[in-house]
């Protein structure tokens, strides 16, 4: 983990330097007295690792000495999630399924980075590329697939390797290499219009590359979709800004030393400095072939996943069962289960009979679900199609003899649950066939969940049924996270999460085992917010530890409640709050935002996004003096100094001499502004000054979740006020609109118009009143985009504009108290730490920053 080695870092590798007390590989020779049979797995991918988990779950650790040999140097990771990693939506650390430590902790020897070359089935040993020879009693091949590179002139360099700039899309290393390349590239060609190609194209496009997608077939995703659905998908993909070329082969790759372009069969040439080949995968069978096993398309196995050698098995994408080779993770995981049953003797007669592939995917941002056939095949097949090309929606079902034999849902997968179980189990279909595809009576989503029979599958990746989820709920586990942990539902590709949530909600209601903690403000105190506030006021509780002592069961503190309580107490008590550092999250303890390597980011306040040459000079000097790894203009119209060592923070603040911008807090963050009437030829009001005034008044005010504001000088909305927690828009004649509950983050919601007022002062008053109402009534971490619809705009209008509950004076006064209590935290403990060692390094032996230096 040294600085600057990000590209070769082992994913899920050890964090501590390897010590002699944690052997990874010498177990090999330590086993003379070990009577356990030797179980060797080749391939540490999704099937291999799951198989090991399943064996351990069945107590197989006692029976077997397990060795896993895998060509990739990493721990086991969720390959499905490479698409979001490539898109920059997930971090690679978050897709680790089993780290190296996990293997060690479970007594499994992982020899990662070791390719197996040959099996000697007579001697029952495997020979690996590192020269080692490993004996086995049972051998499991889980070698997966590799990217197929179609023959194209020039695609490989003289040494047989892919021409630099050409990538497959199968492994984390390929993904990292592409991520590394996107910064240097401008134009990408993606070959292949199937799932992987579309995902790659979308991801690269998101990195700002111009993307051309070349697909040899007449429509996209031709394996899963019919021509009409394919055409609609094409439109959705094109609307992302991706150019699609159909029905044409790429025949040539141009460039010497690095890819420069791609030649198509029709003579066209597309320039590109990056080429992704996603033209399908092929099972990795070479090991089987070389070792004399029966191999057709995949390594041939029987219903117990056994090859033609009685002690050698194959699972996952490298296996061919009853003529089928699968390209999805669900069958691979079913293989793992059956084989674990067989080998551990849990169920020696377990058999695998094939998987029905109902697929639910999100492809290039579009929801897709397919099962069975996609077009009618017989004269009397019923075929129902709803096509709305404008909305990118195409739904169809094929019915034969009153049973569902196929369904394709594109752009709208709300009916997938019912269709999947009708398809799997031949459940009776509604007379009015159209009800299969749309809810005529509306609001029927919940009925959908209730209707589903218990054995219908919800999570395809992990084979979890509605019944299994309900059982866990009935057992008292009603938190979505808990249910997901225990059933593994939603832990593969994640596309079923919302369905899992619906089922949990439904099951919890019906079984009256609803988790009361759902309504608590923080998990450790059994009270909803109004009750909690009343108790805090009544008992005069001014510190986090006082709250725990008085209100928590048995007076027990709870780490995950501390931050929420600190925020609430600060709001309630203002200057009379009794601070306790351990009640704060690290960001609030050191007034900066923690980064992936333990360094921090520093964002000075820059009201309304307005700065001065002097400020900029000071920031520049500080950045140089402290060797700040990256200086970046933020999306909040200010400047971020990233990768700062904790111990440098106080000195940096004092050199900056600017207040904190609170970019780390659950608090008022920024007020973005546009140039407004002073400069802009369309400006209708002085948005810049009003933004500065708002930011000056509400700076640093803590709240249940972030509050982001903006003011614009006209409805052109250049500073995005329509999508802010509070957004203010000048509409002329001195009038200003105040919008609330907007956001353009993980949730995109246009704010609701709360009122149109006559002066900047009225804006400040109303904004303050709204924010105070939100502070007093929102749940912990509930942004205004959830709060406003939950309470209802009408109700909020009545309370704030008509004073229907007589609260307005109190709201204004409470807000004023918070405004008065504001002090700049950087001024506070810059000079003198507020606790001993407040700014001491927490990873004293690791030279920081480890984040890259730009």
């Amino acid at each position, binding site marked *: *983990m040294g600085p600057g080695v990000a590209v070769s870092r082992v994913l899920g590798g050890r964090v501590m330097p390897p010590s002699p*007390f944690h052997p990874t590989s010498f177990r090999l020779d330590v086993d003379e007295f070990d009577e356990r049979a030797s179980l060797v797995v080749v391939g540490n991918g999704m099937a291999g690792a799951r198989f090991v988990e399943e064996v351990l779950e069945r107590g197989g650790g006692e029976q077997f000495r397990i060795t896993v040999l895998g060509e990739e140097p990493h721990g086991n990771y969720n390959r499905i999630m490479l698409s979001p990693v490539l898109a920059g939506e997930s971090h690679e650390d978050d897709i680790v399924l089993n780290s190296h430590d996990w293997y060690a902790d479970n007594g499994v020897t992982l020899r990662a980075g070791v390719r197996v070359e040959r099996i000697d089935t007579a001697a029952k040993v495997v020979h690996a590329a590192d020269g080692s020879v490993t004996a086995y009693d049972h051998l499991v091949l889980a070698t997966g697939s590799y990217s197929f590179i179609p023959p194209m002139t020039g695609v490989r360099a003289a040494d047989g390797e892919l021409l630099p700039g050409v990538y497959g899309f199968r492994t984390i290393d390929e993904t990292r290499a592409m991520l590394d390349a996107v910064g240097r590239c401008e134009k990408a060609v993606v070959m292949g219009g199937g799932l992987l190609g579309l995902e790659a194209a979308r991801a690269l496009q998101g990195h700002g590359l111009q993307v051309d997608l070349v697909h040899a077939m007449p429509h996209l995703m031709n394996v899963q979709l019919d021509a009409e659905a394919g055409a609609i998908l094409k439109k959705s993909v094109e609307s992302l800004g991706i150019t699609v070329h159909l029905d044409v082969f790429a025949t040539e790759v141009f460039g010497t030393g690095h890819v420069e372009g791609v030649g198509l069969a029709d003579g066209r040439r597309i320039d590109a400095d990056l080429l992704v080949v996603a033209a399908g995968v092929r099972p990795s069978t070479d090991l089987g072939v070389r070792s004399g096993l029966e191999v057709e398309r995949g390594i041939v196995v029987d219903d117990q996943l056994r090859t033609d050698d009685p002690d050698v098995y194959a699972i996952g994408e490298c296996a061919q069962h009853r003529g089928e080779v699968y390209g999805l993770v669900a069958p691979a995981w079913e293989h793992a289960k059956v084989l674990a049953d067989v080998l551990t003797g849990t169920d020696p007669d377990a058999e695998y009979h094939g998987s029905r592939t109902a697929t639910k995917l999100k492809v290039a941002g579009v929801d897709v679900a397919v099962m069975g056939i996609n077009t009618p095949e017989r004269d009397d097949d019923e075929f129902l199609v709803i096509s709305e090309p404008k909305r990118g929606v195409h739904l169809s079902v094929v019915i034969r003899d009153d049973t569902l034999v196929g369904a394709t849902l594109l752009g709208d997968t709300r009916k997938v649950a019912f269709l999947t179980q009708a398809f799997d189990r031949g459940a009776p279909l509604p007379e009015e066939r159209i009800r299969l595809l749309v809810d005529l009576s509306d609001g029927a989503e919940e009925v959908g969940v209730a209707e589903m029979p218990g054995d219908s599958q919800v999570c395809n990746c992990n084979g979890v049924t509605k019944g299994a989820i309900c059982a866990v709920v009935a057992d008292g586990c009603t938190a979505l996270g808990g249910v997901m942990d225990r059933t593994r539902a939603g832990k593969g590709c994640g596309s079923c999460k919302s369905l899992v949530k619906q089922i949990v909600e439904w099951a919890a209601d019906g079984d009256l085992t609803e988790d009361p903690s759902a309504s608590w403000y923080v998990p450790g105190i059994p009270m909803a917010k109004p009750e909690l506030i009343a108790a805090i006021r009544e008992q005069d509780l001014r510190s986090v530890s006082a709250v725990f002592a008085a209100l928590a069961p048995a007076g*027990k*503190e709870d*780490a995950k409640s501390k931050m929420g309580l600190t925020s609430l107490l600060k709001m309630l008590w203002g200057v009379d709050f009794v601070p306790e550092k351990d009640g704060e*999250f690290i960001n609030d303890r050191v007034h900066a935002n923690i980064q992936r390597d333990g360094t921090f980011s520093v964002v000075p306040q820059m009201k309304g996004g307005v700065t001065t040459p002097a400020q900029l000079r000071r920031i520049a000097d500080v950045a140089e003096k402290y060797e700040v790894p990256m200086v970046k203009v933020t999306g909040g119209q200010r400047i971020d100094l990233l990768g700062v060592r904790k111990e440098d923070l106080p000195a940096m603040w004092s050199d900056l001499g600017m207040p904190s911008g609170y970019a780390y807090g659950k608090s008022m963050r920024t007020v973005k502004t546009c140039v407004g009437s002073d400069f802009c030829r369309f400006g209708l009001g002085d948005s810049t000054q009003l933004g500065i005034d708002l930011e000056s008044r509400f700076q640093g005010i803590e709240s249940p979740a972030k509050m982001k504001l903006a003011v614009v000088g006209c409805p052109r909305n250049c500073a995005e006020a329509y999508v802010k927690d509070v957004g203010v828009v000048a509409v002329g004649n001195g009038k200003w609109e105040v919008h609330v509950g907007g956001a353009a983050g993980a949730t995109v919601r246009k704010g609701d118009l709360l009122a149109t007022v006559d002066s900047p002062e009225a804006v400040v008053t109303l904004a303050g009143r709204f924010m105070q109402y939100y502070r007093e009534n929102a749940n912990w971490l509930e942004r205004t985009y959830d709060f406003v619809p939950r309470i209802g705009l009408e109700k909020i209008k009545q309370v704030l504009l008509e004073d229907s509950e007589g609260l307005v004076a109190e709201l204004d006064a409470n807000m004023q108290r918070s405004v008065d209590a504001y002090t700049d935290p950087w001024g506070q403990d810059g000079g003198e730490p507020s606790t001993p*060692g407040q700014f001491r390094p*927490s990873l*004293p032996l690791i030279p920081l920053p480890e984040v890259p230096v730009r």
Partner: protein
Amino acid sequence: MSLTELRTSTAYTVGRVEEVPPGEGRAFVAGGVQVAVFRLRDGSLHATQAACPHAGGPLADGQTDVDVLVCPLHLYAYRWSDGASTSGTAPVRLYPVRDVDGDLVVEV
């Protein structure tokens, strides 16, 4: 059975108890190993490896209660009793730590 139990440990004085404020953690180096030492609100002392087993997060910057330590980066929690993760990742390594006349003594 494991080699870990066979090795001998050495005790190091890494600092004074008052260097770790109540409820918080601070990192120290004990015999070439970085450790995070915590003083809980109930007065008890605990020590763990300094870097989170999940992705190397600075555990001394985490939040605590009498049961668990919560890493600041991805909020995985680790139990004081045995170091096990409540979220199913690898456990955190615990080191014995005690207060000897106000000195923090850690065994690694």
